[in-house]
């Protein structure tokens, strides 16, 4: 999960969080809204049931008032006892009309009301008849009419029907109350669960923001700063390299003239020279060549130290390059009568490597072996695969490296005393450049050596090729 979140960009993460927040908010809000609407509806129906029940009772009271007024009038014969009757009679129509409207949605109650209307009408007729007898004939006639019991029967039927209607309304009220209680519980549950989800989500968002979003923002800010610093450093390094390049160009120019004229004098272009003159001119030429070589080496050291050199690998044949370097050294090899052995493992593949760097490696290792091996000595060059590397080794029977200076052999400008005696023209920069270059392209360099017995230098280059490196300049 963490690794998945880490892969998301800040923008994607932000959009995802907003989407989830909106989704959770809408879900909880919708559930709450739905529950509240249900509560409103159920409360409305609950009140409705109470209203129906109340009006049924009022209807019964109206009937009872009418009956009370009727009895008072029959017993006394006074009109003022008819007040409850008149009040009940006047209200009954209105109450009935309210009940009809309230129960419009309920067919059972509507049917009951139809029956009730008939019973009420019959009862009212019976009441009117008894009061008419009292008025027109007298108390006994009215009494006899009542004693027949029709009025009581009607009133009992009305009471039974009203009780039935009350039972129906109570049943509905019970259902609505239970429903309301249920919805109340669901609403409470939704609010509690919503709050818990909201809180958990707050913790999740907080965790993501603290661990990923802020981390990414801080990381991006640091990355931007690092990029800026790298750009500035690159710019400084480029400026330094430009300075060193121009300086080396300026230094080479007079040396080129010196080299040209010395060569022409040695070639006898302006007349013959004697042996002493030739010796001196040769010294000038050697010193001049050494100076040119030193400038090139210092330029390379500068590029290696500043890290501005380019590594541009291409598929190359190591055997061909080493043979070409051996050919360049042919005259020195012949002069010293050195024995050269080469051992190239069969089927060495073309390897992706920078040809300039590989050439420098062979030039450096082989020319060192030639310089520091006494006449008639042996040099063997081996190239073989030692997975996962290609290993080049150059073994000589030369002067070797004294134990005391072995640790210094790859340091800048270092030259051991025995090497300085045998070849005063060395710069002490070759092995430093090779080591730095090889190591920056994924390879290694090391050696075995015994003083006065010889040395073996090894260079390993990954079989899957040198690492490409963007830079400003190639090594020279």
């Amino acid at each position, binding site marked *: 999960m963490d690794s998945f979140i880490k892969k998301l960009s800040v923008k994607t993460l932000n959009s995802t969080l907003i989407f989830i927040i909106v989704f959770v908010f809408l879900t909880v809000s919708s559930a709450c809204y739905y529950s509240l609407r249900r509560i409103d509806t159920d409360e409305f129906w609950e009140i409705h049931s109470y209203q129906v029940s109340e009006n049924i009772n009022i209807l019964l009271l109206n009937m009872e008032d009418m009956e009370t007024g009727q009895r008072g009038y029959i017993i006394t014969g006074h009109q003022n006892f008819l007040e409850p009757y008149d009040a009940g009679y006047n209200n009954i129509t209105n109450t009935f009309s309210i009940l009809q409207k309230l129960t419009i949605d309920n067919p059972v109650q509507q049917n009951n009301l139809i029956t009730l209307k008939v019973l009420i009408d019959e009862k009212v007729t019976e009441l009117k008849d008894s009061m008419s007898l009292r008025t027109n004939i007298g108390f006994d006639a009215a009494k006899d009419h009542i004693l027949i019991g029709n009025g009581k029967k009607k009133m009992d039927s009305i009471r039974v029907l009203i009780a039935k209607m009350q039972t129906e309304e109570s049943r509905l009220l019970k259902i609505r109350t239970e429903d309301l209680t249920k919805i109340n519980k669901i609403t409470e549950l939704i609010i509690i669960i919503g709050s818990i989800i909201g809180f958990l989500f707050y913790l999740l968002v907080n965790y993501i923001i603290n661990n990923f979003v802020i981390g990414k923002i801080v990381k991006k800010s640091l990355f931007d700063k690092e990029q800026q610093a790298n750009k500035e450093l690159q710019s400084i390094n480029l400026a330094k390299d430009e300075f060193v390049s121009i300086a080396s160009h300026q230094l080479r120019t007079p040396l080129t003239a010196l080299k040209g004229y010395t060569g022409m004098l040695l070639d006898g272009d302006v007349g013959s020279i004697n042996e002493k003159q030739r010796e001196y001119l040769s010294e000038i030429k050697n010193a001049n060549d050494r100076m040119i070589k030193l400038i090139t080496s210092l330029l390379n050291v500068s590029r290696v130290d500043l890290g501005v050199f380019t590594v541009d690998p291409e598929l190359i044949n190591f055997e061909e390059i080493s043979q070409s370097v051996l050919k360049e050294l042919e005259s020195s090899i012949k002069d010293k009568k050195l024995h050269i052995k080469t051992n190239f493992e069969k089927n060495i593949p073309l390897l992706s490597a920078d040809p300039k760097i590989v050439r420098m490696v062979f030039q450096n290792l082989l020319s060192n072996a030639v310089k520091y091996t006494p006449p008639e000595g042996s040099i063997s060059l081996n190239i073989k695969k030692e997975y996962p590397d290609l290993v080049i080794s150059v073994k000589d029977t030369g002067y070797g490296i004294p134990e005391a200076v072995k640790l210094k052999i790859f340091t800048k400008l270092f030259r051991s005393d025995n090497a300085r005696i045998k070849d005063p023209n060395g710069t002490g920069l070759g092995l430093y450049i090779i080591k730095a270059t090889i190591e920056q392209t994924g390879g290694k360099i090391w050696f075995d050596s015994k003083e006065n017995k010889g040395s073996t230098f090894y260079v390993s280059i990954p079989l899957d090729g040198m690492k490409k490196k963007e830079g400003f*300049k190639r090594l020279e």
Partner: protein
Amino acid sequence: MKKILIIEDEIPILNGICDKFTHEGFSVSRAENGQQGLDKALKEHPDFIIVDNLMPDTDGFYFLENIRKDEWGKSVKVIMWSNSHDYNTIDQAKKLGIVDFMVKSEWEYRDVVKEVNKFIN
């Protein structure tokens, strides 16, 4: 006699290399910047041209770009020789049709003559 044009701003070097080619039997013409070299090349139609890169006012690339615009100049053999020899310089010069790039400080004049003869013959 083969005609060679040498374009080089460093007078001691120019004098030396011109003397060497004269000594080796060439008819030598000289110029000290790209424009001078271009004028002489278009006028004299030498058999071979050696041109330096970094020169005041008009450099070796100015010369190469312009000489290639001329019908005759399109095919004339040119060596660029310079002490400034980074990868981009060599690559750019090769694209402008040079036959070789020589690092001045690494070559004896006699070897420069040998190289030119190799291409002329």
